[in-house]
């Protein structure tokens, strides 16, 4: 599970630089939440592209997370990247005044998609490619809003577990204030990832690492000392979120179909 931090830093800065240049972008843009993942991504982008080519959008819902907003602002000043605050409460409130709900997951998803919509708009305005910040733990568990925080142009952090990002963040010198923050998707006040998933990241990542990277069987993982219910819960989260990691299925009828046998690389002529 332990990573070689300088090597990973080198890979990810090279990746950001190379992908942007392939698609003729000079600038990268990302949502800054004041949390760990977006901080690490912004740091790597600033290093890869120069700080003046990185735009951090801070996209709060009203005053709900004013401390995180402050942390994100301070961090973007530290990195010397451009930043901008856009409050999404007018758009979100307007929608929910027409279609009210008390379901906080619905509200949280709407906010995540509102942020996505602003990021894509600014991506076009600023000619900046969107850098995703979904880590491997979230991608595997499906802990993210489809077409919300999971939407991006490239995702530099997608092959690092949360605990590996913590390790990288310490090496990169991300301020302790951000590193020690309790991980939260920021969907509502008091929400924490670990509270919602019901397990601490350390334990989740150890199990995911065995299941995914080491291809260990469920039986052997349980035998090595993890609780049966925990392992089964993680497997079921992975299974039920496969739709978030794929393009939607298309019924194949013709002799050559998108998603089936019309097969071209993402980096076509790049």
């Amino acid at each position, binding site marked *: 599970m332990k*990573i070689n931090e300088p*090597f990973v830093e*080198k*890979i990810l800065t090279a*990746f950001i630089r*190379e992908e942007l240049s392939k698609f003729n972008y000079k600038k990268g843009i990302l949502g800054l939440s004041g949390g760990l993942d977006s901080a690490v991504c912004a740091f790597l982008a600033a290093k890869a592209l120069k700080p003046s080519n990185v735009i951090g959008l801070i996209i709060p819902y009203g005053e709900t997370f004013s401390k995180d907003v402050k942390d994100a602002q301070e961090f973007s000043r530290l990195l010397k990247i451009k930043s901008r605050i856009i409050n999404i409460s007018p758009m979100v409130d307007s929608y929910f005044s027409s279609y009210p709900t008390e379901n906080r997951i619905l509200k949280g998803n709407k906010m995540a998609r509102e942020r996505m919509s602003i990021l894509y708009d600014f991506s076009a305005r600023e000619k900046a490619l969107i850098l995703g910040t979904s880590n491997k733990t979230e991608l595997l568990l499906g802990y993210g809003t489809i077409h919300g925080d999971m939407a991006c142009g490239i995702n530099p952090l997608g092959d690092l577990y949360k605990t590996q990002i913590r390790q990288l963040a310490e090496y990169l010198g991300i301020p302790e204030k951000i590193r020690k923050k309790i991980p939260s998707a920021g969907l509502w006040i008091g929400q924490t990832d670990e509270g919602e998933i019901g397990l601490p990241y350390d334990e989740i990542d150890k199990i995911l690492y065995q299941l995914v990277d080491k291809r260990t069987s469920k039986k052997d993982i349980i035998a090595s000392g993890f609780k049966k219910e925990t392992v089964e819960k993680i497997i079921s989260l992975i299974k039920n979120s496969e739709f978030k990691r794929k393009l939607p299925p298309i019924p194949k009828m013709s002799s050559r179909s998108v998603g089936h046998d019309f097969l*071209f*690389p993402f980096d*076509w002529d790049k």
Partner: protein
Amino acid sequence: MKVALAQISPRLGNVEKNFDLHLKYIEKAKKKNVDLLIFPELSLTGYTLKDLVGEVALSPDSNPIFDELKTASRDVSLVFGFVEEKERGLFYNSAAFLSEGKIVHIHRKVFLPTYGMFEEGKFFAQGKNFHTFSTPYGNAGMMICRDFLHYGACYLLFAGGSDIIIVISAAPGRGIQGKEAYETSRMWESMGETISLFSTAFLIYCNRVGFEDGKHFAGGSFIYNPMGKLVAKASYLDNEFLLQEINLNDIREVRKKWPYKRDDRPEIILEALKRIISKYED
């Protein structure tokens, strides 16, 4: 003899741009009086081609790019990778050895990785042989990437009498817990050391760099001498032009000391293989 390895990052699916890149390295090699310049696997096309395979395929006998590379090989011998349309509609992942204006040999990749992130068997026809051929520098044999990890393939080049074994590769790195490189780089180096030592032959491995669809090619091209000693090594992740003088007399010297080649018995191996195959169940 001067050998140069072009550890490059081709543009995916754009033969013309990659041809220009080859010419650039050929010019560089000529200025340094290089005898043999080696490019990575699928250097004229890029690796993750999928359905582009048919569009970028070349027929060596009737292709202007091939003609120009043949001409260039009057000044410097060349090894490079391309998609070959040998029979109509059949596409091979091939390596060409050009020298003195002619095609000396074409190797067609035999072991096409088709598992996990690899899908070569879906798009390429399988090669059928491992030849040793004569070059101005001695007998040589070629393998492409995964071929090299099958020691039976290496043995065929040894048995065939290769003095110089050339491996061209597009190997993505995996594993980030290692010291200074992807963990999989060690696998290639370990093969390089072993095969050079026990074949008492030069082992030249040219890998590529850069990203394609998120796959990160791990570089780290190298040359081992016939004593199994590393004599040249390129960086792991960056473009590089690796130039190395090698002494072909090393082959003769080491074979006096370690007579693996003299003592090899391919006829015994062949008969034993036949017996193994005869026991295959239907």
